[in-house]
């Protein structure tokens, strides 16, 4: 099995054009919602697209954006985020974020959670985020 993985690794090396930095999430409690934030760096010459995020932490995980209409603020689901070549994209409070709905357990300050990010070009990238009150 290990030999097979090694062969696959040589034949299909993981894409290192996409780097994920500063992944963090807000503490929250079981059955509630929270948000995940991080910075995506695209070192490739071409654009890449984040279209899916998976996690065992929540029953539903979606890419969202925060928007405003006058004094009103809201959130809505978006299908993907495009990261242009040679650029970076920050998911941050008050803007794009990964929304975790119906958390399966409490997330306390300092807890860590794993997420799988799915990109059209770079494929799957596993990240670990730490819970912090706020950056």
């Amino acid at each position: 099995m290990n030999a097979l993985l090694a062969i696959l690794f040589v034949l299909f090396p993981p894409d290192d054009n996409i780097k994920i930095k500063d992944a963090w999430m807000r503490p929250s409690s079981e059955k509630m919602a929270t948000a995940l934030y991080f910075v995506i760096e695209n070192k490739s010459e071409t654009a890449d697209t984040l279209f899916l995020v998976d996690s065992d932490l929540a029953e539903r995980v979606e890419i969202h954006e925060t928007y405003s209409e006058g004094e009103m603020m809201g959130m809505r689901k978006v299908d993907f985020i495009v990261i242009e070549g040679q650029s970076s994209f920050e998911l941050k409070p008050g803007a794009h974020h990964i929304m975790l709905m119906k958390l399966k357990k409490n997330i306390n300050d300092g807890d860590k959670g794993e997420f799988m990010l799915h990109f059209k070009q770079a494929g799957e990238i596993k990240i670990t985020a730490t819970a912090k009150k706020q950056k």
Partner: protein
Amino acid sequence: MNKLFSILISVFLLLSISCREKLPLDKDLTKKNYNLINQEGEEVVFPDIIKGSITVMGFIYTHCPDICPMTTHNMYLTEKELKKANINDVKFVALSFDPDRDSPEVLKKFAEVRELDFNYWTLLTGEKSIVYELMKRFDVKAIRTDEITDSEGNYEYSMMHTDRISLIDENGRLRKNYKGSTINIEELVNDIKKLKD
């Protein structure tokens, strides 16, 4: 002597008026009582619970992952800044505009995860019509969006809402509104100091 007394009274009144004019609003919130429920499940009356104290009031719903946690965190940071300035008598109130989901237990859990000190903080919910009537006094609006019923029959929704923190003086008068998620904490702390002058 009478003339001197009149001058002193006039100066005092002018100073009082100029202090009040430092903040843009002066809306009396004490004309009507609102029966609500706090995070302990106790019946409370607004504005009785804030009478005699300067109050920072935020409007939130606990299923909100982004804006409302920012608003709550900004109130938390304001509390910390005030303590650094030896101001320990300001109250913090968070009113949920999602009373259907925000039960007292849910509000208490939301507060505990964020380490909010119930010596200073009260989280409020209540009957929807009363909550929305009170929100109207603050010109705060909230509407349901993205309503879905999943395959298991669970009804879910998000909310679009006014992004608001309000400052209320010790006489129960609304004095200033701020954008809750992006408020300048220094500005709010300075406004509280003006009210205490």
